[in-house]
């Protein structure tokens, strides 16, 4: 009896340790699994194509696969002002006020406001990018909204068992190895100064081990053609706090391997506490890094100045920035922060990240980081396509806003997502929402004031 148990334990250990050790050795030697992860993904997707639908497909082909529920009316839309940072509802722009009776105008304006509100409840442009997008077919990762047959329930439990007993230990082991790797390597500078290439190698190996630990299967497009160079800025759309490791994992090109001075990224981001703080400290040892506090105004200004200084020197690595400011779910892209586009000379290297969420969604909402990490590690795979786009430079007379819009559209086109005209502040910050509401109230007031000026006195109205 005990022999059987021992055999089982040995088999299990082999299943777990085999891939872990093989992956570690491959990555440390600079190689990879090649097409095998993609084959795994292809097989899983073929199996999933038989899974029941959880979200109905539209009848016609749509580019943004997440189809709308309603067609919004023009009058109920919140439209950006051409100048400045405000927006107004289209229905507040009322024509022919002078010829309309007061009661008609009052009822018309208020009923338009009500209609716009109900449309926003069913489908609005902004809040839909801050929760995970629904997947078209059930991917057996969580219980779906429809009831399961007995066979499906059994299959679901089996898949849970497989994921938590095989995939999770392998990936946790790889994550631990990646941290240990960096830990060990951080002792080396005590004895021996590392040159740039060696530090770059350590950084990339750490990132690749970390990404393997996340279950990432990524395809990098056009990196050698559109390689970011020193003194530039790289901008990417943002989905997870691990985007940095994902982009960094592919930073060494063929040219770098033969040169003496590799180019990596200057990594930036919001300073956090907890696990992410540890990751940030680790990263700072390996490459130049700038962490800042988004909430602190002075800190942000200092940060911008440092970024500007880096772009003006030809020695500093390209700065990696996420101009959306918040994590979004990869179906839309928020309006980019225009402060980052003020520097006129620095070339921008846009990077578009596209996730295929059918085998696992890595969007970070507001769960705590470790809960999020468990969700990511226990999915089938995280599939990314990373597109390096050609360099973009601000035109002579171009304003920061229009350049920001141009970069946003380029990234959105490559990632096949929709660009939004609003930024994350409108969703996350109440003072911003109050400011927009006050604008609508002012618009309505103007309409009513025009009515008051154009119509005869109430007494005259009652005289007949």
């Amino acid at each position: 009896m005990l022999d059987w148990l021992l055999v089982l334990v040995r088999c299990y250990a082999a299943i777990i340790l085999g891939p872990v050790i093989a992956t570690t050795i491959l990555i440390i030697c600079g190689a990879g699994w090649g097409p095998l992860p993609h084959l795994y993904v292809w097989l899983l997707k073929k199996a999933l194509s038989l899974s029941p639908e959880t979200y109905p497909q539209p009848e016609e082909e749509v580019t943004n696969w997440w189809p709308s529920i309603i067609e919004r009316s023009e009058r109920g839309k919140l439209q950006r002002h051409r100048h400045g940072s405000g927006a107004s509802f289209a229905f507040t722009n009322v024509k022919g006020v002078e010829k309309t009776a007061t009661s008609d105008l009052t009822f018309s304006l208020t009923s338009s406001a009500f209609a716009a509100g109900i449309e926003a409840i069913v489908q609005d442009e902004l809040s839909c990018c801050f929760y995970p997008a629904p997947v078209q077919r059930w991917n057996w990762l969580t219980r779906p909204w429809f009831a399961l047959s007995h066979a499906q329930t059994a299959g679901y439990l089996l898949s849970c068992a497989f994921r938590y007993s095989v995939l999770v230990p392998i990936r946790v082991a790889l994550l631990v190895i990646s941290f240990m790797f960096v830990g060990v390597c951080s002792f080396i500078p005590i004895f021996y100064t590392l040159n740039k290439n060696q530090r770059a190698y350590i950084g990339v190996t750490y990132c690749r081990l970390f990404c393997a630990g996340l279950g990432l299967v990524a395809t990098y497009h056009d990196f050698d053609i559109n390689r970011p160079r020193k003194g530039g800025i790289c901008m990417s759309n943002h989905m997870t706090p691990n985007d940095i490791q994902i982009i960094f994992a592919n930073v060494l090109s063929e040219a770098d391997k033969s040169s003496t001075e590799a180019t990596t990224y200057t990594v930036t981001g919001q300073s956090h506490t907890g696990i992410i703080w540890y990751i940030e400290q680790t990263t700072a040892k390996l490459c130049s890094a700038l962490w800042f506090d988004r909430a602190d105004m002075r800190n942000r200004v200092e940060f911008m100045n440092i970024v500007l200084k880096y772009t003006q020197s030809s020695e500093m690595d390209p700065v990696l920035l996420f101009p959306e400011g918040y994590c979004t779910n990869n179906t839309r892209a928020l309006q980019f922060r225009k402060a980052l586009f003020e520097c006129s000379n620095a070339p921008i290297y846009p990077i578009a990240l596209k996730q295929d969420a059918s085998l696992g969604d890595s969007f970070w909402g507001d769960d705590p980081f470790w809960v999020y990490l468990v969700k990511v590690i226990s999915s089938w795979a995280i599939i990314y396509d990373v597109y390096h786009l050609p360099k973009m430079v601000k035109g002579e007379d171009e304003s920061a806003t229009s350049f920001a819009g141009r970069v946003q559209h380029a990234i959105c086109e490559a990632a096949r997502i929709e660009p939004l005209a609003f930024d994350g502040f409108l969703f996350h910050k109440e003072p911003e929402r109050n400011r927009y509401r006050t604008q609508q109230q002012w618009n309505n007031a103007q309409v009513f004031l025009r009515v008051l000026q154009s119509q005869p006195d109430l007494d005259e109205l009652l005289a007949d």
Partner: protein
Amino acid sequence: MGNNSSLMLQDDEIRMISNETGFSRNQIVRLYSRFLSLDKQGRGFLDRDDFLRIPELAVNPLGDRIVDAFFTESDDNEQKINFHEFIRVLAHFRPINKSKPHPLNSRDAKLRFAFTMYDLNKNGFITRDEFQVILNMMVGANITAEQLESIADRTITEADHDGDGKISFDEFCRAMEKTDIEQKMSIRFLN
């Protein structure tokens, strides 16, 4: 999609909702997905904060009134809306299909729902005070109290036909004839 069984939608429930509201199965599934995403804490119901988290509703001056109207329809004092109540309210906004009339989205039903958004205390009349509250929400601090009263007065006077100083449902319907209420209170649901 949590593990809470109250968040599950069974096939016979979908059929029942489809008969009750006139929505197709695909529309119900999409609206359910929207309901689940608004229900951030996965409790199976929505409260005021869940609605007002939608930015376009929060910046709408009448946002609070719209949320109130949802809770009024649901007929309980608890200020919670489950999916049935949510989709029942939205059923009023289905466009009118002359070949397939349905009680929930008839012209009369649409007008009655619109009326509840104005009639705050549900006594069947829109008084001058109720109008002033709504106008106040619309214009904020940008108009003086006298000007506001003047507009409310004029609106009531023009719409009030039986001279009782308030607007009944029939007077409301007549006033709404000029604004194309069927189009305003209809949302183009896609199939």
